[in-house]
């Protein structure tokens, strides 16, 4: 179904939000992804993914406190919604299912 498809990067962002729980916002999410994947992540890409996921209903957001370190601007804090959790589960289930069907010989080759 269109709109519910979860891209690889989106999945990672979702997971990061889940890991960070109450402290998930743009900068912290980017940091988390960089730490976990050791790849360089662009903040713009994170924002785009976050907003798209919110549109899909996987995330919800509210403003946090204004902080000096942010130049007096508020953070937008993201949390996973129930549908978001379900989307993650589905994605994992599909992988598991497909992994199980992968011929063993193929895995042994490498």
């Amino acid at each position, binding site marked *: 179904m269109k709109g519910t498809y979860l891209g690889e990067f989106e999945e990672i962002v979702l997971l990061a939000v889940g890991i960070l729980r109450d402290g998930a916002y*743009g900068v912290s999410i980017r940091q988390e992804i960089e730490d976990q994947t050791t790849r360089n992540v662009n903040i*713009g890409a994170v*924002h785009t993914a976050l907003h798209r996921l919110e549109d899909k*209903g996987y995330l919800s957001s509210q403003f946090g406190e204004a902080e000096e370190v942010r130049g007096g601007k508020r953070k937008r804090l993201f949390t996973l919604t129930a549908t978001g959790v379900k989307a993650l589960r589905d994605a994992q289930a599909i992988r598991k299912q497909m992994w199980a069907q992968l011929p063993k010989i193929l895995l042994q080759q490498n």
Partner: protein
Amino acid sequence: MKHTPPALAKRLLRWFCHVEFIEEIEGDLYELFQQRMEKEGHFKARLHYYRDVLDATNLYRSQPRKKNPHQTLPLRDRLKHFFTIAIRNMIRSRSSTAINLCGLAVSLASFLFIALYIVDETTYDTFHPDAANTYRISYSFKSFDGKEGRDSRAAGLWSVTLKEMMPEVKHVTRFSRFGWPGNVWTGNPDNVYVEQQFFWVDSTFTDIFSLPLVGNGDAGQVLRNPQEVIVSETTARRYFGDKDPIGQSITYARDGMNFSFTVGAVMKDFPSNTHFKPDFIVNSVALNPLWKRNDEDRINSWRDSFSYSFINVEPGTDLNKVSKTLQQIFDKNLEFAKTTHPILIPLHDVHFTTGFLFELDTPGDKTHLYIFGSIGLLILAMACINYMNLATARSIRRSKEVGLRKTLGVSKAMLVTQFLGESFLMTGIAMVLAMILFAVFLSTFNMLTLKNFDLLVVGQNKTLYLLLVLFVTVGILAGSYPAFYLSGFRPVESLKGTLVTGRGPENFRKVLVILQICITLVLLTGTYVIQRQLAFIDHTRLSEHKDEVVTVRLGKITADKMAAYKQLAKQDPHVKEISTGPHLPRRETFSNLQRSMKFDALSQTIYSWDQLDGDFDFSNLFGLELVAGRGLSADNPADSSSILLNEKAVKELGITPEKALGLEAEEVTFFERQGGMGRLVTRHKVIGVVKDFNYASVRLPIAPAAIGAKSAASEMMYVKLEGGNIPELIEHLIQAWKQVYPATPFQYWFMDEEFGRLYQTERQMGQIITYLSAVAILIACLGLFGLASFTAEQKVKEIGIRKVMGASTGQILFLLTSRYIKLAAIAFLIGIPIAFISIHFWMETFVYKAALGLGFYVVISLIIMAIVIATVALESLRAARANPSDSMRHE
């Protein structure tokens, strides 16, 4: 120390991104900038910042954030909120709520009644199974004087032959309503009834018409047996009470013959919307001794147009072909085929067909339906107008609410939904009230319209659809303008209180008020004209004494017995005159309508004139005025063959009344005999000329008429009473009747009842329109009252200041009412021409019209003006008399 990100990049970000994104992104970028500053140094941090800003400037960010659908309240809470707010608002403005509910409920109830009436009228005869393909055979003919006439009936052999010739004609059936008057009794001679709805039918009746029986049984089976009669439920109860009617016997007496039948079945009463409603149905074979006397067969005849004939054809049959075949049949079998032409009338059009002789019911009038329908819509529109007016007028009060809602992020669409919802809520409550009104006034409505609706019609599908459509239409109509108007307020202005409502809604309200007054004017003038015309009808010559004249239906009555009765009855001094005569007011359903006359002394022209034969007392009883000559006198033996003419007849002869005296007229009467027409010639001398008088409907012009003294042909006896106790007098007449005619029932009515029937449609229309006008005025007044109170409330400070400056109560009253007077004046300018035109068209249908003049327009306008001023002043007076210190204190 803190470093700041590059200003140019920040400006780009702020310029490009939508305001809803800026805070979040700018914050994140700032945080990152600070981190990089520490790790990577000033230059790289700035470079990254530029890159991130460029990254952020995609098109997606220039739009506002999409609303998250999960953020609104649950439906249940929203509904609760909606109802709370709506009901609070209704309670806060009690008067306008009451006005709206009242107006809407009354107009909805009126509309419902009108709609029921119209639906009932337009679905005449549709309950028969294949009504769409059923037609009545009628025909047009030329009478002796060359005038064209139309007869609703047909001769018996036409339809039967048509079926033999055309396979497309599936069924034919014929019936007649022979028996005016026919006497029916049930063994007991005291129990004699005069029946009008005795139908003699073919056994094929059920092939075309629906005839549901009470209980089991096959109507067709019963009809095939000429010994058995089917009676209607009501008739069965009337005759046999609670006894089982099946197997009971009744006797029908006509022209000295008795026919006995057993009740074979009971049929359900016909619905009110059929053009014929039989009380008795018998196979016409049963009356063969009557049809076939004098060596003729009236049922199976070529030229005795005697039966109402109906055919049922295959769908898609070409009617022209049917007509052509009928014409062929005429050509082959009729002497007068050249002037006789068939007319096919669809079954469900029969009710609206006019201009035919011998119709079975009073024809309906489609114009009346249009008039009622438009009045219903107008009244509904007026109630909607009230709602719109009051809602927009009160908009200031709710502007703060709108402003607050908008600030909190409620979209325009949601506001529109809310206000429309409120109008639907109002309509819904009004609908419930309307149903209550409907239930209360249903019996009054039935009495007015002579229909018999019961409360169950509300449960019928068509009524439910109608209610639903009404609900939606009224809700939208009343609510849409206020909804869009209110939801269009700008929140800043409305919260600050600087909202300027502008001229738009003000002018809109003015137009609506003008419209309402216009409608009221048209309805009021219409009512007045209809009432005047009805009063005029009531005062035409013949009906002048109608409430003192008792009409008695006669059977076959001989002259000497009549004389005996007259003597007996006149023993009471209150019985002034007794005369026999034709059925009056003259209707075509009675035989011997016309006589054809030739005046040899003048020319060879044959005139066909109305026949008004009574006995010698006829002209005295009705007070006919002589223009020339003398009246008919019983003392003069020659007068039994003398005649009086009316002025119209003399005019048609082209001579003066004086010259007409002494003329000899030759009258030719045709009658059918087996094998041809019989011809009878009689001679009459004209001895007097009477002034024209309306002896028939004033819809028709007064026709030439000849009045003779041939009481043997009379169908009616007229008794003129003067003073005295009416019930006692009637009892006296009945006692005398029983002595002279012990076997005949005394069936009587007052002549005004009969006139009531003659102008039934007009009277009905007059009454309905009167009620509707009252409703319209009520609604218009309610609206004006509401608006006036609103204006007074709005201007409370202005009034206060004016009073402080020395204005008198009168001046303030003038200030408040003058604008409505202006509006009323404009409404009159528009309304009077409309009223004039519609009245003109309606009056065209009458030949004799009440003199109307133009003064009544002025009078009615003044009345409306007075109502407007009174309504507005009532509310304004309170404002004008208020103490200015009260109104100005809260500044």
